């Protein structure tokens, strides 16, 4: 059964790749094919945030539940993976910015917000590295992850209105609704689902690897 799901995911993302380049039309007002990076840049950012939110949920269950080490491990792995996806999202975003506006980094509010949340979760990993006792480490990092769930949304809420936004707001969510042709949004959402599924598959594998390490460390 798991194998079937895996191959289904393989097919799903393959279709997304084909769709992104052949099926979806070009976004209006962009330089040639470069807009197609949208189908990979945005979903990775989504997967990264979903990872951080999932980590906060696991942290909450760890703290206010039975202090089950599995929840602590799941939260830590979700944040590590969220950082990896976040870095990929930032790199692809910078590449796109380079093509579109001539500079890798132009202090666009969306870029700033992603960067600061990556800083935050980088600090989370620094905290985990600085505490030896397993129980204390779980407790403190879970609290910080929950603090992140409270603080990082502020970034995304206040940043866009404070500084002028170069980010393609009109395409993504000007006035909150997606102004894209049907075929584009189909591919985008399909890609979002595909990347999120990939995220949690890798998360599952990484958790099991971590569990084996912990078991051997405890022998």
């Amino acid at each position, binding site marked *: 059964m798991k194998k079937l799901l895996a191959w289904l995911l393989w097919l799903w993302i393959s279709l997304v790749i084909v769709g992104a380049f052949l099926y979806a039309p070009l976004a209006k007002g962009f330089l040639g094919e470069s807009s197609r990076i949208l189908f990979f840049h945005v979903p990775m950012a989504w997967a990264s945030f979903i990872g951080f939110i999932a980590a906060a949920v696991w942290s909450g269950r760890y*703290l*206010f539940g039975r202090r089950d080490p599995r929840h602590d491990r799941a939260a830590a792995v979700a944040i590590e993976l969220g950082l990896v996806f976040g870095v990929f999202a930032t790199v692809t975003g910078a590449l796109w910015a380079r093509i579109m506006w001539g500079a890798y980094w132009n202090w666009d509010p969306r870029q700033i917000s992603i960067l*600061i*949340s990556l*800083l*935050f979760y980088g*600090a989370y990993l*620094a*905290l985990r590295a*600085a*505490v*030896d006792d397993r*129980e*204390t480490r779980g*407790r*403190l990092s*879970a*609290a*910080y992850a*929950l*603090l992140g769930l*409270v*603080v990082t949304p*502020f*970034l995304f*809420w*206040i*940043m866009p*209105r*404070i500084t002028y936004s170069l980010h393609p707001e009109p395409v993504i969510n000007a006035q909150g609704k997606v102004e894209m042709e049907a075929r584009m949004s189909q591919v985008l959402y399909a890609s979002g689902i595909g990347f999120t599924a990939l995220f949690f598959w890798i998360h599952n594998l990484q958790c099991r690897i971590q569990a084996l390490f912990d078991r051997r460390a405890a022998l």
Partner: protein
Amino acid sequence: MRRNTSTWGAEVAAVFAKEWRCEFRTRYSLNTLALFACTTLVVVSFSLGPLGVSRSQGTALLPVLLWIILLFSVAAGLPRAFVQEEETHTATALRLAATPSALFCGKLLYGLTLVFALEALVTPVYVAMTSFNVESPGLLIAVLAAGGYGLAVGSTLVAAIIAQARSKGTLFSVLAFPVLLPLLVLTVEVTRCAASGSAPDVALPQLLLYDAVVTVAGLMLFPVVWNP
């Protein structure tokens, strides 16, 4: 003897009184904060002074530097409140005697008084040395109060977290700055409005909301951070 609210307030007062009594005996935090604020103040105004920042540039640049001075001064002086409890092992006695929420509020009040004292020291000198023209001083005081509160509550919570880790000093900055950055963006924006005299449309309510949100997070998370 159930712990009712009236005695909860007495616990908060006891913690607050203890913090200041210890502080007056050693003056550790006061000295650190004052010295740190003065040195950064001199460095900043020196870099601005000779350059002679023009009036228009001033309103954009000076608010940022003011809040950077305050941020770094707070980062230097405030974590001690919890770090010293762990390093001198007095935290064990405190864990066995104090109600966590009362302890958090006591330490927060202590942090608040430190931050407001810092602001009262730094801001007038800063305005004088950089000839920072402020159109509406009332708004400036409001943002100093709300921003100072945010700095205090954020720093107190993060200090409680890093107090139980190794390498506390560096860890505090690494963990605290991403938490305090949204606050800084808002305080700089409102300070800029105060300088130019324009109305801070949405930034001030957002600043107050940030304070409220972090306070609630602090009250919920501190007991879990403080106790096993």
